[in-house]
């Protein structure tokens, strides 16, 4: 029997494959394509204390082997989320991870506190969204601010806290250490790389927001490098993401030191991607006679 279960801060996932926040809604839409019961966890789109309308359109643009997005964290707010999205996810035998966004530390804490009584397994704090003016990335690019908000969030959190790191920094290990110092239980990385596309014929930005977050296979080498660096620098478990589309991609992250992985942009070009990654990891393990997935985690040093 192959063992694919992994443990994130005391929470056991049946396998290391989860969805990347913002690419999978709260699971409903893709439940028409994949069996959510087969996933290690579903990570929801970022939710704030109140509904956010997000940015003007165009919100996305295609780039070579990737895309830019500036959705701007449109979300229905925590009330609707708790009434509708959590009950939907509870029907499935998978872990529920709620991605939390905010403009101020208080916003984050309000949502985190509110989720304390909900059947949610882990909280992912998005301090790295490059597409909103306030909050978001401001916390994610300054180690002191990151440590402070981590501490604050931890005061209110009943569930283990995942801090989601931005790749738009000089030294990712410094950020990882700051989150660790602040009491984070798990780290997830990478969020999107800030990018821009110009429409030369219309002489304007391709996105209404000018800049957007780059994701997809194009960013994978940066993501693998950062996961590797962070795995060498801190003791916390890591959720690796950035360009994962296949089991081979996921295995790169696991071998670089990630305990779990998220599939994001790939859902958009292959709605079956998450399930296929789960199956592909199992197949690789069988082929290579790996009994326990923990043998693969951090296998390349």
């Amino acid at each position: 029997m192959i063992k694919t279960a992994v443990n994130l801060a005391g929470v056991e996932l049946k396998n290391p494959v989860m969805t990347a926040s913002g690419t999978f809604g709260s699971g409903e839409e893709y439940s028409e394509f994949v069996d959510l019961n087969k996933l290690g966890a579903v990570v929801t789109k970022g939710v704030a204390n109140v509904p956010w309308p997000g940015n003007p359109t165009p919100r996305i643009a295609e780039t070579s082997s990737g895309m830019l997005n500036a959705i701007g964290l449109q979300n229905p707010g925590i009330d609707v989320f708790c009434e509708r999205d959590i009950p939907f996810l509870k029907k499935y035998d998978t872990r529920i991870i709620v991605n939390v966004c905010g403009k101020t530390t208080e916003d984050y804490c309000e949502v985190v506190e509110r989720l304390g009584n909900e059947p949610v397994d882990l909280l992912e704090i998005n301090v790295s969204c490059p597409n909103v003016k306030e909050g978001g990335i401001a916390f994610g690019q300054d180690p002191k601010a990151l440590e402070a908000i981590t501490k604050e969030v931890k005061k209110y959190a009943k569930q283990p806290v995942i801090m989601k790191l931005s790749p738009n920094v000089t030294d990712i290990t410094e950020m990882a250490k700051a989150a660790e110092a602040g009491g984070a239980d798990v780290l997830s990385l990478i969020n999107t790389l800030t990018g821009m596309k110009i429409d030369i014929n219309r002489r304007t930005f391709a996105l209404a927001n000018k800049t957007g977050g780059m994701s997809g296979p194009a960013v994978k080498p940066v993501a693998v490098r950062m996961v590797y660096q962070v795995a060498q620098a801190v003791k916390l478990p890591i959720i690796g993401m950035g360009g994962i589309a296949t089991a081979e991609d996921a295995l790169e992250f696991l071998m670089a030191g990630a305990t779990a992985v998220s599939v994001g942009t790939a859902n958009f070009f292959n709605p079956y991607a998450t399930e296929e990654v789960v199956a592909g990891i199992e197949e690789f393990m069988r082929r290579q006679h790996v009994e326990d997935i923990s043998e693969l985690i951090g296998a390349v040093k």
Partner: protein
Amino acid sequence: MSEKTKKSLKIVSQKEIGKDIYSMWLQADEMADAARPGQFLSLYTRDGSKLLPRPISICEIDRENRRIRLVYRVTGENTGTEAFSRLHAGVPVEVLGPLGNGFPLQEAEGKRVFLMGGGIGIPPMLQTAKELHAEKTAVLGYRDELFLNEEFENFANVFVATEDGSAGTKGNVMDAIRENALEADVIFACGPTPMLRAIKTFAEEKNIPCWISMEERMACGVGACLACVCKSKEVDGHSHVHNKRICKDGPVFLSTEVEL
């Protein structure tokens, strides 16, 4: 599970029916059974550097042979649509669909209906014309060269407008309506935003219920990513803001629901 699937569909035939306008028939099987007029398919290139879907409206459905026809414009060099245009019969294409809501045919049954299409917004009106049982007037707007207009003749009374005046009314679809003093109780329309805006105003002035099919950049095509929103008058059901998802809540909206 749902009607939506992602599959490799074989191209049955493809030909250029106008400058840069291609008509492609796909062997769609269940996707054809499930498809409704006004819905669309997302096509994917096989070039790993071009990842996002190209949403293309369903132009025609051959229910007997379970085929779907797409009519699309090649938008430029080195684009996804250009790649599609180079594919031959027998080659497989990755397709996600059917997507979106489609036109609410029941709202127009038996009434006098305008089927208005502008440019590459014309194709979805064809299957709509085929399936709708009503008194149909197709009002088709072109820049210059006509396409598909003859095929509408089988299902509707056809009026044409061209910007350069080379056929029909010189001007746009609204000019064609005025010039021919056309009237209707319901409007179904698809085309560029300025045209939809004019139609929306016209419909609201005349108090005619009007459904328009809208366009926006898409990533998921299924309502998950919130890329493709348009402004809605009322707070939307999904995000509780004022943003409807064109891919899932649309692409067809009651004109009074949305802002353009």
